[in-house]
Structure formats: C-alpha cells, structure tokens
C-alpha cells in the first residue's frame, strides 16, 4: 500500500488506528470539504459538466475494479472492455427480451460478470504475466464477438436501445438524478475496495502480488484468492458496464473496442499502480483528456485544421501521454500528488532527492 505522507508528531498506537480509513483530523476535514463539494456541484454545473462528472464516476468504478485486480492482486488483465461489454449486454438483452427492471438486470450483470471472472481467471492459475494478459485479451474478442452475434441475429444491427430505469417513483432521465446515482455507486465501489484491501483478503492479494511462493508458504490459497480477485473485479466491472448501458440508453459492440481496454489500463498506469487514489485520479484524467485536447485544438492557432480528425489527434496525444508517464513517472499522478504533499509538509526543508516512498 502506498504510504500517505504525514507531518511529524503523528504516531499510531494500536492496530485499530492503523486500519482506520480516515486517520487525522486534517484528513477528516479535507474529506468533508470534498464530499460537500461533490454534493453541491450538480446544482452549480451545466448539463455538460454533469455529463462529464457522470462519465468520470462510471470510469472510476471500472478503474477501481481494475486496480483491485492489477494493482492489488497483481493479475494483469487486457480484457476489461470485454467485461464491461458483458455487463452492458446482460442488461440490454434482459431488458429487450424480458423487460426486466433495473433491480433485476444489475444483479444479473454482476452475476454474469462473476461467472466470466471465473473464466477469465482460470488461465491465471497456469499462466502469469504476459501470457495471462494475452489470454484475457483473447477472451475480450470472444465476448465482443458474442455481443455482435446477438445484435445481428436479433436484428439490432445498430445496437440495443434501453429505456431509462426508474428508482422507485423517480425515472432516471435527468442528469442531476444520474449524477447522484453514479456518485453513490462510485462511492460504494470505493468503500468496498478499501475494505477488501485492508481485510484478510486484501492482504492475501498483496502477498500474492509480492511473491507467490512465499504467499503459498504462508498458507494462502493462491488459486482461491486469484479466482476471488477475478470474480470480484469482474462482477464490479460488469455492473459498471450495465450502468453505462443505462446511462447511455444504448448498447452496441462498437463502444467496447480494444481501445477502451487500453484506456482503462492507462487509467491505472497514469493514476499510479497500487493506489486507490490513483484509480480515481487516473479515471478522471483519462475521461477528461479528450475534452482538454478538443479545447486545446480550438484555442491554439493553426491547430484548428485538425479539428476534422479529432479522434486521430486524441489517439496521438493519448499514446504520447501514456508513453511519457511510463517513461518518466512510473508512480503516476499519485506519485506527483504525494511529492507535492511531501513538499508542503516538509517546507521549508527539502525532501532528499530520489527518495520515493
């Protein structure tokens, strides 16, 4: 777990304190301010801002689940878009074929995700590293193919349309309502992840990531915990996919390309491997990135002529940013943030150069 920099004079004196999610008064205040800002935001923001926030929350759920798998359990997956697609298609197909409501399709998506998690996770019992990544990549193509097959066979060749769901008496058509639903979902996911990570399960995952043989010698069931990581992560991802389908009101295989997987992997990398804060920062960064690029295109003189090929500009810039992070800041945005925190905490003294957590 990445260490949060703290001012001197703070000591933990028992394990309960060590496990506490929020430890110091300053953290409590910061968290309260942040929560208040999140609650006030929808009443001040434009519809466009609301849409962006909703997209960030959806990305947060997906990025957190990938961080759980890759950053904590150390299992590499390149099949994230496939799992999102599985969740979205479960919701879409159930809605189209049976007219099932929100509260049935979401758990079904989680269930399908968990099942697929077993399928995606089984190769991890034999394979490691590169080969595991490749097998999940292959499964991504299989899932997307099945989705496309359903679309063409049932005659929804352009995609499946889903009506907005209703929570009790309120139909979720309004951006503000969606904002709160997705905020709650993202917060719940974060809480689940945090609690998993500081429990026996999370410690077992970190042990497996650090050294499998040693973990096994410590009595950790490698196969069981690996599969559990895949199952939990996939279930969360599938729910994120289903929420995405409802939010967009539309499911189509085109949305779940390999590029989406790469985007999620990039969130984890850019955010900072092994850190929950990193997952959130990475999700926000990657989601908002295309909009920054667009804004930059229209602001910079001479860049406007590329506006017709916005996606190509996006691809180039995105690839470049990912390369730069991999080369120069392996700890990602979290690393930068921690260094700023350290700088402020230690001011006016300087942190010794090169001391990274």
């Amino acid at each position: 777990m990445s260490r949060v920099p703290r001012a001197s004079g703070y000591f933990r004196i028992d394990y309960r304190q060590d496990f506490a999610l929020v430890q110091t008064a300053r953290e409590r205040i910061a968290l309260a301010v942040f929560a208040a800002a999140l609650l006030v935001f929808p009443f001040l923001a434009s519809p466009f801002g609301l849409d962006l926030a909703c997209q960030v929350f959806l990305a947060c759920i997906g990025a957190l689940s990938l961080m759980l798998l890759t950053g904590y359990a150390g299992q590499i997956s390149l099949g994230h878009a496939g799992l999102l697609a599985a969740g979205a298609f479960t919701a879409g197909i159930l809605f189209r074929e049976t007219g099932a409501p929100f509260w049935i399709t979401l758990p079904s998506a989680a269930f399908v995700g968990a099942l697929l998690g077993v399928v995606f996770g089984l190769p991890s019992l034999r394979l490691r590293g590169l080969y595991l990544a490749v097998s999940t990549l292959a499964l991504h193509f299989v899932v997307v193919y099945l989705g496309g097959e359903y679309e063409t066979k049932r005659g929804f060749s352009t995609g499946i349309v889903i009506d907005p769901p209703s929570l009790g008496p309120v139909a979720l058509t309004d951006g503000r309502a969606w904002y709160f639903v997705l905020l709650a979902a993202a917060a719940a996911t974060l809480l689940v992840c945090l609690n998993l990570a500081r429990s026996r399960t999370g410690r077992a995952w970190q042990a497996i990531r650090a050294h499998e043989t040693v973990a096994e010698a410590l009595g950790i069931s490698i196969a069981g915990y690996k599969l559990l990581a895949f199952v939990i992560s996939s279930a969360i991802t599938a729910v994120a996919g289903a929420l995405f389908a409802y939010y967009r009101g539309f499911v189509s295989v085109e949305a779940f390309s390999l590029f989406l997987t790469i985007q999620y992997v990039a969130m984890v990398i850019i955010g900072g491997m092994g850190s929950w804060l990193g997952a959130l920062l990475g999700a926000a960064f990657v989601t908002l990135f295309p909009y920054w690029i667009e804004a930059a295109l229209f602001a910079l003189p001479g860049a406007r002529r590329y506006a017709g090929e916005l996606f190509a500009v996006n691809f180039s810039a995105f690839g470049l940013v990912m390369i730069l992070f991999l080369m120069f800041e392996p700890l990602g945005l979290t690393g930068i943030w921690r260094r700023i925190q350290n700088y402020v905490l230690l001011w006016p003294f300087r942190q010794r150069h090169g001391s990274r957590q």
Partner: protein
Amino acid sequence: MQLAVNIVVLAAIYALIACGYVLVYRVSRVLNLAHGELMMLGAYLLVATASLFSGHPLIAGAAALALSLLVGVLVYVLLMQRMTGEMVLAAVLATVALGILLRGVVVLVWSAQQQYPAQRLAVANPPIELFAGARISTFAAVLVVTTGVVYAALFAFLRFGRWGVRMRAAGQNPLLAAQRGINLHAVYALAWSLSTLIGSLAGMLIALDSGLTSTMVTIGLKAFPAALVGGLDSFAGALAGAAIVATAEVLLIHYVDPLLADVVPFLVLIAMLVVRPWGLFGTPEELDRV
C-alpha cells in the same frame, strides 16, 4: 481448390507478420503489441514514396523499406531502450501506447481514406490462373514467395550470420552475452529494425494487393495468435502456427459464419493456452509459470 489457395495466402500473410513478433520476443523478451501499427506505418511509407517516385515501383519500394528500417531503430532508441530495466509489463504497455500513437499519427498524416498504392505506382495486379480453376492475385503470389524467402533468409542469418548468432546469444542470456562483449543495444536495435522491416514488407504487399486503411492493424493483431500458437520464441513455430490459424479461419468462415473472422485466431489462441501455453515449438522452461 480456391479454399486451399486462400488458406495458403492467409497463412503466408500471418507467417510473415508473426515472425516480426517472434524476432523481437526471442531477442529481447518484449511482446511488441505495436507490430500491427508498425506494419501499417510501413505500408503508408510506401504510399508516401509512391508519390515521390511514381514511375519506379522498385525504387519506391526500396526507399520505403529503408525508411521502415529507420523507424525500427528509432522506436528502439527513443522508446524501448528507455524501458530496459523496467517491468516486462511496462515495456509491453509502452508498445501498446506506441501503437495508439501511431494510429493517430497515420490518420493525421495520410487521412482516414482508403489508399491504393498499386494505382499510384501504376503496377497492375492481374489474377494468375492456377490448377483446377483456382486463382491467385499477382501480389498475393509475390507475398507467398516473399514469406518463403524471408524465412529462409532468417534461418540462414540466425544460424550462420555473425550478428544472427549474437542475436540468439542475447536472447538466451543477456548477461552472459554482454560479458562476452556483445553490444546488447546494437543487437536489440537490430532486432527491432529487422522486425519492423519484415512487418512493413508484409504491410506493403497487403496494401498493394487490396488497398490500405487504418483497419490493417486488425490483421497485425490477428497474426499475433499465430506467433503464440507456434511458440513465441520459435520461427518454425510461427510458420506452423500461421498455417493452423489460417486453416481454421478460412474453413470456419466458409462453412460456419463469416462473422467469425475476427475471433477465430483468438479462439485457437485460447485453446492453445489451455493445453500447451508455451506453444507448439516454444521452450517451456522459459515460461514464467506458477
């Protein structure tokens, strides 16, 4: 009979692309997921040189190949050399990022429209009548022959060439190789440039045969299972893998469902990973296994 010809052509395409994956993996243990994009870039380089030397297809081709060699060296020096010492996964992700970057750059420079380098070079592509009414286009035939030549050359180079032996040594044990005075960076740079060169060659021939858009990346990605099925560090394996994947793909498309085209190579890949993860001819002990 046409089916058999189709299988041979597709197998040749996959084999030609797959040996690029194998070359880089065997020498530097990095899986180059940007190979499809590098191949596409090579094909677009031909489009660029075609407008420079429009009357001389051979000069244009040679110039494009020389450029692609340079691209390979640049990729190593600017990107992959800096990733040495990082986790293998970081290096692989760097290639993924490079792929995304190239996709964008290619569209920005050459636009997303379909290009026909064969028309620009004013070379014809007449079908050749083979036995029993089966046909093969000229460039597809050239591609099959090229694949044979490239593989023969690679075998000879790695077996007898001074640098070929160095490459094998670096692949087997980088530390010992460096101790014996082999310049590892030069060897890796050579592997990357050769791999890019061969990939570009494949890309150019495919583009000459059937036109060029950015969807060519998909072919590059589908050739990857061929490399893995055969064993990621074996050239003979790449040939066998390409044959298996191409046969499965052509037959399943023909008899079952055309939509299967993009997924068959990956189904074969999954089957192989379950049964024999190191591939047909790969070396099992080198696999990072539990």
